[in-house]
């Protein structure tokens, strides 16, 4: 894709999210973006960058900014300031992230239970395949969406390495439900690193971020122990149920994160160094 084509996508998106606004507001936003694109492409040309690299940068800036664009568009309606606590940033993107965190957390609290009760038979007829599908597949995708929402929503405050691990974990984790089940570990590692970083930046409390990382470690250790001793757990309902108990805190931790973000994000005291 060429830089000019990427710029056209940006212009189309601006036309979409400014539709219905007063002409002056619409024109101002369009002109701001037009100048930004011109400066970006002009700088790209003079610095000798390849057209492809520039196109990628434009698309990245477009995609990462979409939640903020939607949030800005919603704000144009004029929110009631009395409903918003002053120390919270109630963007739509953060609220969706909170919702995904809660839904994903519920899914991950639910699925270990039928998995422990039915074992692999839970996925076949006579089990509860619909419940496992909803809780495992949709729950995992919700958690992946929550992680991406956290990365995008707080890109200014988290370091590039943590953002990368978070995005990678969300992507591999979301894909793991198609059969690459070991990939789920990436989701846990990614979320532990990402949430730890958000605690460091002041978005989440340090206690909450450490607790989340601990639950992720407990989850991974438990799964490793189960698979290392699979013969012990096969057909052993009590053992499976006890093991499932160690998996639940991770889901509860996500519910707690979503709940703490439900009215917006607490303001970090200070931004982190890193790419923006």
């Amino acid at each position, binding site marked *: 894709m060429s830089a000019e084509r990427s710029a056209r996508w940006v212009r189309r998106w601006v036309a979409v999210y400014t539709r219905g606004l007063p002409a002056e507001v619409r024109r*101002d936003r369009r002109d701001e973006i037009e100048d930004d694109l011109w400066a970006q492409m002009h700088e790209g040309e003079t610095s000798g960058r390849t057209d492809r690299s520039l196109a990628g940068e434009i698309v990245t800036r477009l995609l*990462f900014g979409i939640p*903020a*664009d939607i949030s800005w568009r919603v704000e144009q309606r004029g929110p009631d300031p009395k409903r918003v606590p002053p120390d919270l940033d109630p963007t739509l993107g953060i609220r969706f992230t909170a919702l995904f965190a809660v839904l994903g957390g519920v899914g991950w609290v639910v699925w270990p239970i039928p998995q422990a009760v039915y074992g692999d038979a839970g996925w076949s007829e006579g089990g509860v395949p619909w419940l496992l599908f909803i809780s495992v597949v949709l729950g995992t995708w919700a958690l992946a969406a929550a992680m991406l929402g956290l990365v995008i929503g707080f890109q200014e405050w988290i370091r590039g390495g943590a953002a990368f691990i978070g995005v990678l974990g969300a992507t591999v984790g979301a894909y793991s439900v198609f059969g690459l089940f070991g990939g789920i570990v990436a989701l846990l590692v990614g979320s532990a690193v990402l949430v730890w970083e958000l605690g460091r930046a002041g978005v989440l409390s340090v206690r909450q971020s450490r607790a989340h990382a601990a639950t992720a470690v407990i989850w991974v250790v438990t799964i490793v122990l189960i698979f290392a001793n699979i013969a012990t757990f096969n057909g052993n309902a009590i053992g499976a149920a006890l093991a499932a108990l160690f998996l639940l805190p991770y889901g509860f931790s996500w519910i707690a994160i979503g709940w703490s973000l439900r009215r917006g994000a607490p303001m970090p005291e200070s931004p982190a160094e890193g790419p923006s």
Partner: protein
Amino acid sequence: LTIGRYLPILSRCDAGPVPSSRLTSYGTLYKALTRLEREGYLASRWEDPLTAAAEARPRRKFYRLTLEGEGALSEARAADRDRLPDRPAAAAVR
């Protein structure tokens, strides 16, 4: 609005051109600028369209820090230095 949330963007307004590798996404940047202006930390004006047309480029919007913005930025920087005393001041706002 807590100024610390938008400190990186405010710092860049104060520090001149930004390398392309550190560009903020379009949505985040312009939403932040809108909020900072609404809160009185920034003031803006549009360039004369004729000037832009003469140079064959889109018109530009110029932002400047208001007194309130300068004060808030200084406070946020000081708070950042206090929080991380071992960090060099320049790095703390980058």
